């Protein structure tokens, strides 16, 4: 790409796991040359881990990449080089540490400390090196008689200057400042900030500035990453992010900063906004089939009282279709409409009342209807049939249902059998795996997807001990978010089948989930009112997810002529 030349760093899907604790999860960003990127967050947010992974002070998990635009050799992948291959590149990227005490070897003189990079990279003879060290001392405004002294002779701010001199003596392009001014008193902090800004102007440096002090970051950075629990929750122009925060966490962080103006009263937000899903709408019977539509917002159906509604980000609800009961699953169709499942599977165009049948009920097979459906990358529809339904109590013995695929030409076929109570469906990010919940067995199945959308024999991917898996959604990082009906919340499963989180909602009957909002960062959770007739406690919740959801391809199945 042509605009790549402006960039100095491209980070993609960077993760770091310590033992079992995920310190950094799927971080991606670009950094322009001579730019200053702030990384903010509280302790444990992963900001220092990010800084250290970029410079390979610690090795990131396999899979993520860090590409660096080297002056010597052009683009190079830092994350895949061996440590000795990194050495020549160290000249171009350096770090300034937080603790001015522990970052300098107490047994070396200032001259030895600042000179060491030159020795390692075999630059100059002894006299030339000394000359460079003297220049650096001038540059960071330390007196020349510091040369023979040891770090203990200096104050915190002066030590930080020594650390900066050591980092800059090789003329790096990229400098990572890890909480460089956090340990300093305000006045010293101001000196160091000014120094860093002056140096950036003269030496055309690119900074990654890791800090927890938002005021400092706002002062010296152009762009910012806001981190929380190892995930970037918000990014962008620093003024824009700070003036118009989008994510709850950013809002919480900003609201917590005490203003130095006594007339501007601090009004900290409650931490609860992070931990609890926020109610969006309520008053429905049993909400199901949530699906995100870029224009309408979240579409959902009420199985018991009927209707399909759309709710936008300002919580305004609009009916989309009226008085159609029993819709259990929905998907967007490319032809400005949607595919809905109930007693059969049909297509409905937005703004029209007519339904066009895609897959009819098959009573010979014991089929009383269909449940959740999803689409693959090609636009095929996968939908499960109910052998007998707990929703439509038709007095029949529970029987197994099938999983159907409706191909692009509109023809359907069975791709899997023996599903006790078919429910949520979702593809892995690479499209090679299909996850499928069976509520009655309490299991999530996993199918490998073969050619033409055929499925290989299934294996049990995860088994729930309490509740029943219902609707599910897959996120960009491959995690599977499963609504658990009965357990009152959403389980977050890793691609290896382990559960890493659980998000509770206030009611036990949690029926389905889907990702929505800008960047698919919001997790919508829908609920029902325990199936009690006449009860209207079903509703929609939303939750700031720490990953983006996987975008779903609209169905492209051919619509038969009416």
């Amino acid at each position: 790409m042509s605009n790549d030349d402006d960039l100095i760093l491209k980070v993609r899907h960077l993760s770091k796991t310590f033992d079992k604790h995920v310190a950094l999860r799927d971080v991606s960003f670009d950094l322009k040359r001579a730019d200053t990127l702030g990384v903010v967050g509280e302790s444990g947010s992963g900001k220092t881990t990010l800084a250290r992974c970029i410079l390979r002070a610690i090795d990131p998990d396999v899979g993520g990449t860090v590409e660096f635009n080297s002056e010597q050799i052009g683009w190079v992948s830092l994350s895949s080089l061996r440590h000795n291959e990194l050495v020549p590149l160290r000249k171009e990227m350096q770090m300034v540490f937080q603790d001015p005490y522990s970052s300098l070897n107490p047994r070396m003189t200032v001259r030895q400390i600042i000179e060491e990079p030159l020795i390692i990279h075999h630059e100059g003879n002894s006299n030339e090196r000394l000359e460079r060290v003297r220049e650096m001392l001038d540059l960071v405004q330390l007196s020349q008689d510091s040369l023979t002294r040891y770090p203990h002779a200096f104050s915190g701010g002066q030590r930080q200057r020594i650390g900066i001199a050591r980092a800059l003596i090789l003329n790096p392009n990229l400098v990572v400042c890890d909480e460089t001014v956090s340990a300093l008193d305000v006045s010293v902090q101001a000196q160091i900030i000014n120094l860093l800004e002056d140096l950036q102007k003269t030496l055309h440096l690119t900074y990654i500035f890791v800090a927890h002090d938002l005021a400092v970051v706002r002062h010296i950075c152009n762009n910012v990453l806001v981190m929380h629990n190892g995930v970037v929750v918000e990014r962008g122009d620093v003024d824009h992010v700070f003036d118009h925060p989008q994510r709850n966490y950013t809002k919480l962080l900003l609201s917590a900063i005490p203003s130095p103006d006594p007339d501007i009263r601090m009004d900290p937000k409650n931490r609860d906004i992070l931990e609890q899903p926020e109610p969006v709408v309520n008053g429905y019977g049993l909400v199901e089939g949530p699906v995100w539509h870029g224009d309408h917002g979240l579409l959902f159906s009420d199985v018991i009282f009927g209707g399909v509604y759309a709710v936008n980000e300002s919580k305004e609800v609009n009916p989309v279709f009226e008085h159609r009961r029993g819709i259990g699953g929905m998907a967007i169709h490319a032809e400005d409409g949607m595919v809905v499942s109930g007693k059969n599977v049909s297509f409905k165009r937005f703004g029209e009342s007519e339904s066009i049948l895609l897959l009819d009920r098959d009573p010979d097979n014991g089929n009383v209807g269909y449940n959740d459906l999803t689409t693959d990358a090609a636009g095929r529809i996968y939908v499960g049939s109910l052998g007998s339904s707990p929703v439509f109590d038709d007095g029949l013995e529970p029987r197994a249902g099938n999983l159907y695929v409706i191909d692009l030409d509109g023809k359907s076929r069975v791709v899997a059998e023996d599903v006790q109570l078919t429910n949520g469906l979702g593809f892995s990010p690479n499209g090679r795996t299909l996850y499928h919940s069976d509520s009655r067995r309490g299991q999530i199945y996993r199918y490998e997807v073969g050619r033409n959308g055929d499925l290989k024999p299934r294996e049990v991917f995860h088994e729930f001990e309490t509740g029943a898996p219902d609707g599910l959604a897959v996120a960009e990082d491959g995690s599977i978010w499963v609504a658990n009906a009965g357990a009152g919340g959403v389980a977050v499963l890793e691609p290896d089948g382990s559960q890493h989180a659980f998000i509770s909602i206030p009611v036990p009957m949690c029926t389905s989930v889907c990702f929505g909002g800008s960047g698919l960062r919001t997790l919508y959770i829908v609920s029902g009112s325990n199936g009690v007739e006449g009860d209207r406690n079903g509703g929609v919740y939303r939750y700031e997810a720490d990953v983006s959801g996987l975008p779903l391809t609209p169905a492209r199945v051919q619509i038969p002529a009416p």
Partner: protein
Amino acid sequence: MSEVVLEQPPKAIPLETPEELNLLTPRQLAWRRFKRHRLALISGVILVIMYLVAGFAEFFAPYVTTSRNVSAINAPPMDVRFFEHDGTFHIRPFVYGYDLHINEHTWAREYTENPEKIYPLRFFARGETYELWNLFEGDIHLFIAENEEGEGYIHFLGTDQLGRDVFSRVIYGGRISLSIGMLGIGLTLFLGVLFGGFAGYLGGWVDRIVQRMIEVLQSLPTLPLWMALTAALPAHWSSLRIYFGVTIILSLFGWTALARQVRGRFLALRNEDFVIAARLIGSGQNRIIFKHMMPSFLSHTITTATLAVPGVILGETALSFLGIGIRPPIVSWGVLMEQAQNYQVISMTPWILYPGLFVVIAVMAFNVLGDGLRDAADPYNMGGQ
């Protein structure tokens, strides 16, 4: 560069330590801290003297280990005098010779000083011939006692049942006991740094195995095990081989504490900012280990080693005392005390316990010195606070 706006020099912010402290090197600072520990300083001096005397035992001891004075068997310590019984003052110190009586009831030997026999001390005088370190022949001793007729003897700390001078034997014994302490600790240091370093540096299963090993060894009562191992040293071995054998056995179980410490320091240092900084400027593995990590755990290691020397000395003494450690004719402090197995012997000739006094002094000195070094070793323990 000219674009950089110079701040006023940060002189308004006072330095945290007075100016003269700022000019010191870390080593000088450590020395300052060590010097403040008066007792440790004294202990250091005592140890230097002990090692010097033991090193030149042939010169400092008036007699060689095997020399017997048959006229003074089981003789008590002599007093060094400047005044005769009648009050006559001599500028040259002297001792009185002994007269021997046999107690008619107990048949015990009883010695009385004979004021007629005056044996003046002669310094740097010729006495018994010896071979210094088995290399140089000599006969100059720091002091001997001899009158004009060439008669005389001095037994500062008495003699044993064969009439051998306890003082001389203590000096020779010190050579063995103190050197076993040093040699043993050298070996311990080697094993400790080796295992601890590997465990700390490699981590993973190597670390787990070493940790397990340490745990097992630390839960064994050492003396019975030492006994078992030294008892296994073949009887026909030469004294020198036994000496090395005992040293190795003593170190074999002593390295665990050190290894644990080295491992801990290694792990801690690996994550110190200045070590990460060294890696980020492109230092190679060797440079990081030897230039950045080694110096700061060396001081700790030396401290621990100093504190471990007493264990080795005490171990040797105990084993030799039991007759299974160092074997005569080589003498060590433990060997010297082997004779003192029961209280009849001790009550008759209590002075054969003197070697024990030297054990106590040496061990105490090492302990105090170790304490002082530990206080001095911490580079962040600056100034007075």
